């Protein structure tokens, strides 16, 4: 069949040309505005591109791996990496656990009005991050915030959520869990619906309790979905930016400065583009490593 198609009948040539024409605009856009910049970023990270080079590219020098060496010796990089991994590990785990719990509840046999609840749970996902981050900033306000007013009503001491280095990242995680809850929940719910009902019937015939069904049927059958959700959540979490940008500007101190926020500040505030590009590539390497582990170790099939 393939051999037949390879021989150039007029129709084949026509499809060939049409195929190229139809794909060309998208491919050209991706080549010029994505592939080329990514390749350029790699080169950029090997230069001392700074504010002087923005004005006069002739002053640009090739510095080899100096930016990476500087990065590894820079405490602010390790701090940002630590913050990002903290957010990904703690925030990601809480987020996945909350969504899994919510999906189990929503798909429970006794649940009602599923469509309504699913819509409500999903609403925070579509909201604009900058807008809801501003809302949460006020919910976390030490004096007027609803959260501290609730603590006060319960007789508990007030917490300076965004002003205390120990609480600022947990506060950002709170916003992230709230906002992403519905996204993973929808994926988990679809995974739950795909588990054949016969498995539960067989388990019941064997006398399995509700808890045993969850442990021995639901969770194992859901494993491919769970691996996928964990991987995608991890990749998304590593790109943390707008939450700290709006809520804390990376502070207090450096407590919430993430890798992307550090890259943004180095690149677009101080115009150390070479150094910022090195940060971007470290982020890329971490995301690629996470994807590799996900695919090889946990057999996640897709990353779209």
């Amino acid at each position, binding site marked *: 069949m393939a051999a037949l198609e390879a021989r150039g009948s007029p*129709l084949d040539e*026509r*499809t*060939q040309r049409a*195929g190229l*024409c*139809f*794909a060309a605009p*998208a*491919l050209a856009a*991706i080549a010029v*505005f*994505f*592939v080329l*910049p*990514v390749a350029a*970023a790699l080169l*950029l990270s090997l230069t001392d591109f700074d504010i002087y080079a923005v004005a006069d590219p002739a002053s640009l020098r090739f510095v080899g791996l100096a930016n990476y060496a500087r990065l590894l010796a820079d405490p602010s990089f390790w701090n940002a990496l630590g913050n990002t991994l903290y957010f990904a590990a703690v925030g990601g785990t809480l987020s996945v656990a909350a969504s899994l719990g*919510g999906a189990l509840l929503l798909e429970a046999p*006794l649940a*009602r009005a599923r469509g309504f*609840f699913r*819509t409500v*749970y*999903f*609403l*925070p996902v*579509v*909201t*604009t*991050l*900058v*807008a*809801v981050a*501003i*809302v949460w900033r006020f*919910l976390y306000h030490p*004096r*007027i915030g*609803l959260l501290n007013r609730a603590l006060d009503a319960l007789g508990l001491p007030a917490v300076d959520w965004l002003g205390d280095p120990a609480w600022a990242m947990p506060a950002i995680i709170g916003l992230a869990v*709230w906002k992403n809850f519905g996204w993973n929940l*929808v*994926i988990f719910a679809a995974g739950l619906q795909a588990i054949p009902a016969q498995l539960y019937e067989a388990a019941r015939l064997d006398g399995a309790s509700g808890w045993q069904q969850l442990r021995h049927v639901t969770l194992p059958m859901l494993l491919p*979905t769970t691996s996928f959700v964990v991987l*995608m959540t991890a990749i998304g979490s590593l*790109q943390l*930016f*707008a939450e700290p*940008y709006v809520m804390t500007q990376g502070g207090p101190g450096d407590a919430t400065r993430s890798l992307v926020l550090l890259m*943004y500040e180095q690149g*677009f505030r101080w115009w150390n*583009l070479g150094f*910022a590009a090195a940060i*971007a590539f470290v*982020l*890329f390497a971490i995301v690629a490593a996470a*994807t590799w582990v996900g695919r090889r170790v946990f057999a996640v099939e*897709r*990353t*779209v």
Partner: protein
Amino acid sequence: MKRRWLSALTLGALVALAVFSLAPLLWMVSVSLMPAGEATAAPPRLLPSAPTLAHYEALFSRLPLARAFANSLLLASAATALGLLTNSAAGYAFAKLRFRGRDALSRALLAALVIPGQVAMLPLFLLVKELGLVNTYAGVLVPSLASIFGIFLVRQYVLAIPDALLDAARLDGAGELRVFTAVVLPLCRPVLVTLGTFTFLGAWNDFLWPLVVLSDEALQPLPVALASLLGEHAPDVEILMAGSVLTVLPVVVLFVALQRHYLRGILAGSLRG
């Protein structure tokens, strides 16, 4: 009896989660309607004493939010139109038109999906600057011209269209462009609505790239305008909440209207192989 208890318990838990999801949004709406200063007064109020639209008026008359709203609408619509055009054509080509290098390109695109967008951002800014597109709408739209996710979303859908249907149109004398516009596109309507909703919401909510490209206040979309409003009006909670409502409301309405299509897009990306 036990069953009834369990049923009530389940419903109670579902409602509690709904309150968790909705409370910050409802509080945002409530505060946006409060007279100035009421949100910060003691004792705390959950509802406005005398609801007022004064802050919304201020956003439109005193502050540049009407302009930002128009910018957002324009940018998100243009991104959607451009994305639909290029991605549907490419998705169709990758599904049905065998051209040289197609399979290798397809594998390369899937591999490139792993690359976080921020990696391209610094050189992309230099490129946009070289092209003279800093502080223009075009500069913001450049990354939305095509998306790998969009191409594969359409491709997957088009794969299910029988070849016989396309060949029948060709035998009737239709050119390739006509096959695409008259046969493929109408059949693709559901996936185009899905992709369109995705693109529009993504473009409306986008923050980092417009922040980088647009320093001119007159061109900034809502999220960027809102972030600078926060810088200038941090103590005016009521005004900030009105601005947040203005930013969030259109996407919430759009989502509720088109949620079936939107959710299908998420699942297309996660479950089907």
